């Protein structure tokens, strides 16, 4: 792709205005300003222009024009992403799907809903509650994030050990290809002939197509849910208790862990009644029929006590359950209160390495001189370390980034991965070189080319150019050796 666009912003805007309401083809800096970043506000860029189409036909025409002139296109939903996946390209177009915000159809018997991509995640469950149904994946940003963005990131949430990720809960997407074709991938059935393009599209971060419709599966709302809260005097014991629950044949609806720092911050914020002296806290939600929940709650309490819990408490009402979750769900803003800024990481590890990873992180915390609090989707191994920093202190964000990078390298080292649910975007693109070798990365580039021969969809995100990888790997290798020597001498 050429570094200069072959068409000017003014010419492009004029072409778009021929078929899109001119008020929604934005070229002035002031109106474009809110689009300069997504939820990862440390990474900013102003686009060439912003366009808000309202029909799939308009998206097709936008794509055909951009493809012809090789103009980059960055799709954007609610802008809640945490890896700068929707950060604009300075010589490209931001294509906002904000106007695609309608629920098109709900079929209660088939337990499906057909949605435009700009429908908010939580709005789906709210709308279908009248039929006793809900939509499974519930990322923390569910009040604001949209289903189109969920498809792009393969979003999870606190219930995915039992109910799966976005990829497990969608039936089909209608998408516009880079070349402007409109296709439906998947159908009303549970599978389709040929390669599984629906899985490939899910989590592809806007690099393979623009989603204009999503058909989701809905689940019957469980009769009842209860939470057992258990405090432990060590992370190791809490980790063992997670294994204990699963060995018992219980698959909790949600299974969350917080470390000592996160417990205090969350309890100060939400007054959730957490055991403040505990070094680790587990929240274990069991849902299902009344009989099943009664049976499993009793078993869970026993397992926790047997494995050394210092406190065990079970919610006795919906209010109590909501309060116990409130602390966990507000852990990020709670930590935000005790620090001017925080940086949320998203590595995933095999759970057996949890204690080792947390200890290593404490060591790094001292090394980098930055505090870290941990919340953990314990059921599925997804860690969210929150690094506390102050962006106004020169050099502190750079140190934070380096600390974050080291955490991700550690995740890969123990057999995990650099991102469980936030995506690679721009933020983690360097660490892709640690997760994958050049042959694998080249295969990813070739996959993208199969969908997007001109390379106009969200270029520069997700998969790094190979020429940068070698450099990063050797740098990290040196750094790693240096750390090891330091540790030995320390």
């Amino acid at each position, binding site marked *: 792709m050429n570094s200069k666009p072959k068409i000017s912003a003014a010419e492009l805007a004029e072409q778009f205005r021929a078929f899109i309401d001119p008020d929604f083809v934005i070229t002035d800096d002031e109106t474009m300003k809110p689009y300069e970043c997504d939820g990862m506000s440390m990474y900013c860029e102003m686009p060439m222009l912003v366009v808000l189409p309202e029909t799939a036909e308009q998206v097709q025409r936008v794509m055909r024009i951009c493809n012809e002139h090789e103009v980059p296109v960055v799709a954007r939903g609610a802008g809640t992403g945490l890896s700068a996946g929707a950060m604009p390209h300075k010589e490209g177009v931001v294509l906002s799907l904000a106007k695609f915000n309608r629920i098109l159809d709900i079929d209660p018997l088939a337990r499906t809903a057909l949605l435009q991509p700009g429908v908010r995640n939580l709005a789906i469950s709210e709308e279908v509650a009248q039929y006793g149904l809900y939509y499974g994946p519930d990322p923390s940003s569910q009040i604001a994030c949209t289903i189109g963005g969920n498809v792009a990131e393969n979003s999870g949430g606190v219930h995915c050990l039992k109910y799966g990720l976005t990829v497990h809960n969608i039936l089909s997407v209608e998408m516009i290809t880079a070349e402007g074709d409109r296709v439906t991938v998947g159908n009303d059935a549970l599978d389709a002939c*040929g390669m599984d393009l629906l899985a490939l599209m899910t989590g592809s971060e806007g690099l393979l197509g623009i989603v204009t419709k999503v058909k989701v599966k809905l689940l019957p709302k469980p009769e009842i849910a209860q939470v057992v809260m258990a405090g432990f005097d060590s992370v190791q014991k809490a980790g063992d208790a997670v294994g204990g629950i699963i060995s018992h044949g219980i698959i909790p609806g949600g299974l969350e862990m917080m470390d000592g720092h996160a417990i205090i911050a969350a309890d100060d914020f939400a007054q959730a009644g957490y055991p403040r002296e505990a070094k680790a806290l587990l929240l274990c939600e069991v849902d299902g029929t009344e009989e099943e929940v009664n049976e499993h709650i009793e078993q869970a309490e026993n397992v926790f006590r047997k494995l050394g819990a210092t406190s065990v408490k079970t919610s006795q009402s919906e209010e109590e359950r909501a309060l116990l979750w409130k602390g966990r769900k507000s852990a990020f803003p709670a930590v935000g209160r005790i620090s001017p800024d925080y940086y949320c990481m998203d590595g995933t590890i095999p759970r057996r390495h949890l204690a080792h990873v947390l200890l290593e992180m404490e060591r790094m915390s001292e090394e980098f001189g930055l505090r870290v609090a941990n919340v953990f989707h314990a059921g599925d191994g997804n860690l969210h370390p929150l690094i506390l920093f102050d962006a106004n202190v020169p050099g502190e964000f750079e140190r934070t980034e380096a600390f974050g990078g080291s955490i991700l390298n550690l995740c890969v080292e123990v057999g995990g991965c650099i991102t469980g649910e936030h995506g690679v975007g721009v933020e983690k693109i360097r660490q892709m070189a640690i997760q994958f070798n050049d042959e694998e990365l080249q295969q990813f580039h070739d*996959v993208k080319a199969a969908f997007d021969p001109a390379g106009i969809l969200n270029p520069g995100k997700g998969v790094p150019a190979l020429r940068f990888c070698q450099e990063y790997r050797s740098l990290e290798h040196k750094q790693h050796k240096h750390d090891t020597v330091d540790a030995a001498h320390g």
Partner: protein
Amino acid sequence: MADLSQKLQEQVLQARKTGQKLNIEGGGTKAFMGRAADADAGSLNMGEHTGIVEYHPVELILTARAGTTLAEIEATLAEEGQCLHFEPPRFGDGSTLGGTLACNLSGPARPWSGSVRDQVLGIRLLNGKGEHLRFGGQVMKNVAGYDTSRLQAGAMGTLGAITEISLKVMPKPAMSVTLVQDMAMDEVIHYMNSRAKEPKPITSAAWVDGKVYLRLAGAKSAVEATAGKWSGEVVEQGDQFWQQLQHMQHDFFAGDEPLWRFSVGSTAKNPDLDGPWLIDWAGSQRWYRGEADIAQLETMAQRAGGQVSLFRGGDRTDEVMHHQPRALKEIQQRLKKSFDPDGIFNPGRLYSWL
């Protein structure tokens, strides 16, 4: 138990050099599936690339080489009270994990427990350039790079030879009960979907020979309470019925008559086609026996929100899978080229044009 990956890699590199094509074979129990294999192609034998590489029961994760049999994996899981809850069909003792993923085969619990594709966490793959690649991993959540692991489900080996698979496994349900009652075909679609809409421990719903079968599985108290409330007789040794369905050993599947698979919307009206039908997956998977023209069946399947394929028997020199619209066909051709530029693997097995 043997790691033959190096030998397999050498064979692919050799084939690339000499221009030879390769049919990927495991236990050979699914030779009847897809279009007829290219008779001039050599064989890439995965059947001896076997062994469970890692198994962590408390993490619900198992990694095995592609040639490992389902029998071996399920026996190992059973020792820990766990199972492959997508209930993969076995068409013989030799059925392997690799073939199960390549053909995307799952059993009666699929609408509730997910498919083999849903449980895959990562793979190793030999592509057509002879590169041994690793995608995904051993963790439940992983969005680093494209999901090229699940992309293999249903690709029937056209993108490369899967050499290793990591998957999520689950605890065996503590108890299961099967309920049966008489029901006409035109009532059963609504009935099964209504039951599926209730928050009860249902894990299978099927209809055959004028009878509807529902399976309840999970915590003992929940299964017993639901079985007491729902209509239908309890079937003695009900698990046998579901196993017959899972492994296609039910009488419905006997004989040489062409077997068509309709994968459609669960509530769709049944295609207007005389002959024997078996409905599974609460209406999402419907089997039909009889001579028919695929183009005509495709129209019916599309009307029902899905697709049709000729699963077994009939003319296997022609297309056996539902046709692809132009744009998706082109994307799949380009994907094939990106993984297998010389078209070494399973030529024409999925579609004549792949």
